[in-house]
């Protein structure tokens, strides 16, 4: 637990100090919102659907950027080798990187929810609160997948290209479930109406976290 906390604390400190990931994620979210709101020009009846779509586009692209930056920091000066040689359990190391990625993404998503409220003219209220489960499950699942895949892609020359090629096809079922659950929440339906979509998201979370914990050791090991 001590090593897990040390890695998480270090990642948060690096991010707070540089702000690189958070600022880049926020700027990207803002760009996505602006482009989509003017491209779609949403009518009142379509607002919930379009806002949910914009939110998830921001989540996926922002998540990839955040996970990549977190791993680049580890590969700078070979720090990943130091972590590999240290006594930390690879699953705990994966957990710490995942927790850091989740925290960065969550901060940006709070800002993104504020932006969709503004750009899509949504009401502050219970509908936004109902977004929380789908966003939380979606963020956790995508952070879990992106952390694992970023560990692979950051060691390759074309890592920035490789991550979306690997991550997006694997995450498509979860994206569909997330968009549907978010649309239901923003349309004012009760949580129970989105329960099957939330169930799918939770199942993907379990799958990606388990895979990450099991495979991370092999991913960071060198030939």
């Amino acid at each position, binding site marked *: 637990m001590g090593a897990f906390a*040390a890695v998480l604390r270090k990642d948060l400190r690096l991010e707070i100090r540089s702000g690189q990931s958070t600022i880049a994620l926020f700027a990207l979210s803002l760009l996505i919102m602006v482009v989509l709101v003017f491209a779609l020009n949403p009518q009142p009846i379509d607002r919930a659907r379009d806002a949910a779509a914009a939110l998830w586009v921001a989540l996926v692209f922002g998540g990839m950027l955040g996970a990549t930056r977190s791993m680049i920091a580890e590969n700078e000066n070979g720090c990943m*080798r130091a972590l590999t040689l240290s006594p930390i359990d690879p699953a705990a190391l994966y957990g710490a990187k995942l927790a850091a990625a989740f925290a960065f993404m969550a901060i940006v998503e709070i800002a993104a929810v504020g932006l969709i409220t503004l750009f899509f003219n949504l009401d502050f209220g219970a509908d936004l609160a109902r977004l929380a489960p789908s966003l939380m499950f979606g963020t956790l699942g995508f952070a879990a997948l992106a952390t694992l895949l970023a560990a692979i892609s950051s060691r390759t020359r074309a890592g920035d290209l490789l991550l979306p090629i690997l991550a997006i096809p694997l995450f498509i079922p979860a994206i569909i479930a997330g968009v549907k659950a978010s649309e239901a929440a923003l349309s004012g339906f009760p949580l129970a109406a989105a329960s099957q979509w939330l169930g799918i998201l939770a199942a993907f979370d379990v799958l990606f976290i388990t895979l990450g914990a099991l495979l991370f050791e092999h991913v960071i090991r060198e030939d």
Partner: protein
Amino acid sequence: MARPAVETRALIKTFGVVPVLRDINLQISEGRCALLTGGNGSGKSTLLRIIAGLSQPTSGDAIVFGASSRNLGVVRRRIGMLTHQSWLYPNLTARENLTFYAELYGMPHGDGLAEKWIAAVGLAAANDRVREFSRGMEQRLSIARAMMMAPDLLLLDEPFAALDPDAVAMVADLIRSAIARGCTALLTAHSQLDLGIEIDRYQIVNGRVVPFRDESRAPQRSRIGA
């Protein structure tokens, strides 16, 4: 006779079809200091990485304190390593870097330990970020990082690179102190070194590790500290 701290058995490493290390059978007893010399690209760093479990041999094995380097397990925490890369976070200060590694290894009083080792390697810039350090300052801090956990095995890849004469003497003194407390050390260098202690000398020739015997033809030794 002391038990071997490090033992390689018919170890071979190839990159693609290019053989780098051929049939390495090396044994370093506990508490000994060994020096491995060789030219650029001779495989010194690769051998150290394999012993540390950071790279896998193509065939054969490296045994460290009785554990295969393919799965070192708890033996990992007994190894301190210095490589050409500093393993330091540029956006953390010297103190924060060492405190992080102390916490990672579960060392109590990480702050105090970091202070002690920053002083031991003569760094005045404890609160400066590593990205502002010169190569030599970074090397000093890397040496502190490698040695602060009081490892039983030190793997030091060219530990005197980029250091000024005062720092060279200081690092040599730290290595001698580590050996005196029973630590085993494997150092690499391009040429022979004299640390003022008994050293088992080896060299890599055409991918094979052989004892360094012909001292009359040795390159000029650098006498360090003592």
